[in-house]
């Protein structure tokens, strides 16, 4: 018997729909609809009260009209009336209309809520279900869900309703006693309830994993029952010979919210399940139907993502990888697509990275032959993820050749990926330059600013490639038509390094200039501006073309250019070239200084484009080992200055760059009126590494003493100024300056009396906070008048990283476990040095304790050695540190090893401590 019998129901509705279908044109259809709308409106507005049936009919018609894409601005009231009807059919239509058409901001929501509330309170399960479907009320639902007498289907709806509520407005449903009981729904008899509950628990567990930890064991147990069962006891949940595929998928998803179970028995049971699922994939299919293999593979893929998520069982990972490898060549496109996608995540696991790499040929083949752009896109992603130094050349070459035929929609992304890989894995930077120029040649329109900024940064920072780059861009510019981006790169590089190829008569200065200038009129304003800067650089590099260039600058099209930027550059450069001497020109137009290393702006762009979650992180520790450490991406995100400035401001290097040391001095005196040169006194600085109190500075007039205390990331320093003379100090003032790279902050400085009597001592308090790890120390500037002369004193304050140590006691076992965890090469810093003081065990111990770490007894097998542990507290992070000092009394040498999770910290601590022995 058909569940829905045709014919009965609403005749008027059927007639209306037939009418519309018979309409020959869009206009006729609109006309018919408008007529019907007018009719319904008049009926609703009419005096005669409509019976339930007609209301139902009209609301249905409205629903249909809405589906066709017309606005419905009335009828809501009638639908709400239907909602409160006692008849099931009317109620149903009412709910349907409301859930399709009404959004949660509508004014009617109050009325609707009322209706729903009534239904929820009723004892009629059907009504309750309808109400739950429509979804609104909070506090009742958990009760319904866990009450013993609720029908299965109502429980199911209640679970999902709760889930939905939790998503839209989590504060409506307070966590409570019911949560514990929800977990037990995983054991419910009815598999439908279990499926719904699993969805609910997965969402809740993502929010507060700790509350739902108990679900792990239940989920594993349930999964194992399904996977190993002989599929008879599963009621009707066997779908094309696969036992409860939906529930299995949900359970595997739930398990992905947690790390691998700690309990060994549970863990082995889960491993067994996963193995069984992998084994089943090898069995011959029980049915030829595509649904059978689909369901089976749905479970399989979910199992593989769980394996990848756990990332702990090498054998499972390799098996998963092999399984995916099989799928890569499967004739089902869907499976090839999913296999590529899963492999992408697999590639970032260190256990399976090598295994993934073996499939490179297949993936490249997919890129070439696959007919479906979605699949090709995944293949590109996978190639990007599996790339490392060993196969970079091959992969980049393949991507470049694919780029020529790639779909327009994904070209920009491929360009970014090629640029990143080429930079990251370049051993030979000539290859890098070639690759990027090729990229511009093939897909110039898709090469964003970031890409060509980056190539210029790299060329400027690497002397070995500059000549080659100049030669290559010169050759590339010979092409009759070249992309504007190439002109930009060419202009910049020749402007800087054109002299490196000027010896060859084929690329003499004049030839270079004419070549660039031949492109000038075809370019946009920003490029022209860049070219003008390149010209003035030429005047410095090649005095012989000065006259020619001045001629160009002097022409009306430059000096009177409508664009103000171009005009200004032309005027300024022309004047500069006329009046400045060769020496001044050489200084002003000096070669660009190297760029500070920062996060590749291209990578930042790709991250923005893909969203943080979707980009396989290729910068994890594994890659850094063989990756290019020079371009470590760990630079603070705040440093992400896009290089827009490079094009204009940096190119004309008008301000000579201040040297690093000078800026420190300038800072010291920035507040003071005198310009007398005063050395920053730091002779006593090292003495404070292992102690907190003492005299930091002393001369004939003044003694400065310190007393300091530190707790976690905060510190307080008492500074004592002692007047050693018998006359008073006038206009005494002191201030603290921090180099701006210095990230520890002086929070506040208490004020000091401007007069210090002879022989007196005054005190000043500094509050200090460590924001993140740092190297430089702040400088205390003191100024006063003594006998009519102004005295300036600058003292380096002993605020060092190790002051923010909290000692940590640990057992020998813990120590070595952590020691191993911090095994990456950049985390360890080691120094071997000669002893400066007599090697006394007790003194050494005191120094290590004074350094701030806990001294761990009986950890090192050699009792001569010292082992310590502590945590550096800063506002942003905490960095755990382990240290080991091995004295060699015979050779009078020490070996100091530091391991911390941050390389800069290891280095700084090692520098500080090694000076102490």
């Amino acid at each position, binding site marked *: 018997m058909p569940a829905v019998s045709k014919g009965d129901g609403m005749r008027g509705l059927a007639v209306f729909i037939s009418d519309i279908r018979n309409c020959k044109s869009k206009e006729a259809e609109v006309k018919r609809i408008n007529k019907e709308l007018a009719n319904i409106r008049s009926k609703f507005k009419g005096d005669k009260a409509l019976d339930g049936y007609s209301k139902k009919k009209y609301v249905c018609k409205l629903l249909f009209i809405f589906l066709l894409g017309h606005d419905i601005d009335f009828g809501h009231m009638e639908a709400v009336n239907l909602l409160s009807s006692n008849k099931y059919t009317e109620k149903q239509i009412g709910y349907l209309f409301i859930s399709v058409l009404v959004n949660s901001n509508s004014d009617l929501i109050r009325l609707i809520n009322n209706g729903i509330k009534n239904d929820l309170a009723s004892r009629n399960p059907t009504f309750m279900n309808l109400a739950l479907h429509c979804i609104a009320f909070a506090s009742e639902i958990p009760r319904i869900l866990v009450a013993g007498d609720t029908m299965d289907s109502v429980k199911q709806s209640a679970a999902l309703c709760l889930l939905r509520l939790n998503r839209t407005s989590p504060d409506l449903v307070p966590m409570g006693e019911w949560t514990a009981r929800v977990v037990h729904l995983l054991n419910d008899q009815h598999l439908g309830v279990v499926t719904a509950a699993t969805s609910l628990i997965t969402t809740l567990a993502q929010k507060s994993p700790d509350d739902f930890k108990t679900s792990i064991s239940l989920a594993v147990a349930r999964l194992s029952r399904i996977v190993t069962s002989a599929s008879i006891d599963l009621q009707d949940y066997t779908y094309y010979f696969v036992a409860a595929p939906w529930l299995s998928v949900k359970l595997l998803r739930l398990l992905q919210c947690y790390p691998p179970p700690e309990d060994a028995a549970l863990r082995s049971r889960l491993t067994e399940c996963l193995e069984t699922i992998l084994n089943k994939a090898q069995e011959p299919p029980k049915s030829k139907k595509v649904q059978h293999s689909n369901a089976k*593979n749905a479970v399989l*893929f979910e199992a593989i993502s769980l394996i990848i998520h756990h990332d702990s069982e090498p054998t499972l990972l390799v098996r998963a990888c092999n399984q995916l490898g099989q799928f890569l060549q499967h004739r089902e496109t869907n499976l090839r*697509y999913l296999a590529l996608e899963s492999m992408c995540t697999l590639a970032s696991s260190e256990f399976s990275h090598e295994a993934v790499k073996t499939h490179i040929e297949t993936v490249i083949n997919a890129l070439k032959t696959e007919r479906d752009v979605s699949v090709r896109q995944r293949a590109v992603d996978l190639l990007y993820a599996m790339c490392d130094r060993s196969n970079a050349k091959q992969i980049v070459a393949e991507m470049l050749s694919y780029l020529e035929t790639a779909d327009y929609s994904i070209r920009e992304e491929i360009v970014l990926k090629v640029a990143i890989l080429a930079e990251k894995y370049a051993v030979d930077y000539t290859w890098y330059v070639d690759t990027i120029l090729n990229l511009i040649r093939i897909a110039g329109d898709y090469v964003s600013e970031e890409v060509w900024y980056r190539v210029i940064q790299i060329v400027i920072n690497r002397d070995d490639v500059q000549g080659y780059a100049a030669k290559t861009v010169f050759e590339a510019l010979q092409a009759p038509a070249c992309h504007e981006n190439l002109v930009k790169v060419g202009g910049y590089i020749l402007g800087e390094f054109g002299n490196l190829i000027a010896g060859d008569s084929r690329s003499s200065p004049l030839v270079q200039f004419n070549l660039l200038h031949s492109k000038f009129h075809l370019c946009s304003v920003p490029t022209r501006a860049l070219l003008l800067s390149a010209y003035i650089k030429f005047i410095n590099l090649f005095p012989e073309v000065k006259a020619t260039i001045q001629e160009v600058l002097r022409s009306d099209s430059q000096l009177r250019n409508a664009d103000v930027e171009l005009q200004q550059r032309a005027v300024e450069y022309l004047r500069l070239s006329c009046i400045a001497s060769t020496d001044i020109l050489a200084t002003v137009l000096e070669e660009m200084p190297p760029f500070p290393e920062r996060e590749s702006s291209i990578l930042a762009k790709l991250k923005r484009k893909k969203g943080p979650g979707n980009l396989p992180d290729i910068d994890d520790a594994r890659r850094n080992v063989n990756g290019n450490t020079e371009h470590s991406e760990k630079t603070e995100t705040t440093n992400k200055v896009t290089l827009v400035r490079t094009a204009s401001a940096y190119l004309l290097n008008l301000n000579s760059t201040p040297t690093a040391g000078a800026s420190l001095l300038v800072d010291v005196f920035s507040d003071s009126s005198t310009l007398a040169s005063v050395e920053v006194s730091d002779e006593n600085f090292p003495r404070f590494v292992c102690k907190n109190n003492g005299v930091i500075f002393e001369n004939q007039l003044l003694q400065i003493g310190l007393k300091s205390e530190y707790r976690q990331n905060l510190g307080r320093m008492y500074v004592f100024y002692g007047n050693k003379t018998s006359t008073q100090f006038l206009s005494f003032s002191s201030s603290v300056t921090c180099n701006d790279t210095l990230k520890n902050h002086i929070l506040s400085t208490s004020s000091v009396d401007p007069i210090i009597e002879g022989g007196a001592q005054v005190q000043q308090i500094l509050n200090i906070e460590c924001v993140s790890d740092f190297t430089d120390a702040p400088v205390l500037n003191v100024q006063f008048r003594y006998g009519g002369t102004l005295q300036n004193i600058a003292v380096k304050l002993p605020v060092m990283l190790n002051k923010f140590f909290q000692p940590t006691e640990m057992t020998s076992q813990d120590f070595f476990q952590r020691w191993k965890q911090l095994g990456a090469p950049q985390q360890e810093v080691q120094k071997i040095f000669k002893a400066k003081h007599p090697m006394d065990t007790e003194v050494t111990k005191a120094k290590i304790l004074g350094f701030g770490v806990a001294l761990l007894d009986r950890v090192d097998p050699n009792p001569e050695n010292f082992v310590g542990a502590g945590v550096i507290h800063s506002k942003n992070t905490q960095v755990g540190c382990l240290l080991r000092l091995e004295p060699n009394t015979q050779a009078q040498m020490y070996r100091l090893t530091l391991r911390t999770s941050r390389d800069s910290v290891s280095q700084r601590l090692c520098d500080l401590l090694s000076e102490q022995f």
Partner: protein
Amino acid sequence: MIKAILIFNNHGKPRLSKFYEHYTEDTEQQIIRETFHLVSKRDENVCNFLEGGMLIGGSDYKLIYRHYATLYFVFCVDSSESELGILDLIQVFVETLDKCFENVCELDLIFHVDKVHNILAEMVMGGMVLETNMNEIITQVDAQNKMEKSEVTSVLA
């Protein structure tokens, strides 16, 4: 979760649209049009997944679709759903419709929009899968019909 379920025919005429997130009516219609353009230009033997259109969340969402004779069934889902699972769900949905309507065809969907919605409501609720067991779904639909019948007869009597 499932963000939207769309059914339209080969010409892009919508036959059922159910959004589990609120959009304005205009946007809904635009999404249907955009989805149709994305899906309809694909060949028969390519894969059943593609990234969503710009209106419905771009690459964070996937469109999973099946093409039956004159109709496209499209589910728009986020990354928390299993692709093959959804594909199976579409199959279950269609098989259920087939059982309920006896050889379902486009006309059934046109004339019984409410019934189709009700069947869908038995399977998907608030964007989450409620029930995947076909027999269970059909039992519920039957029960609904029985209730409907009894009311109709009681009115006549």
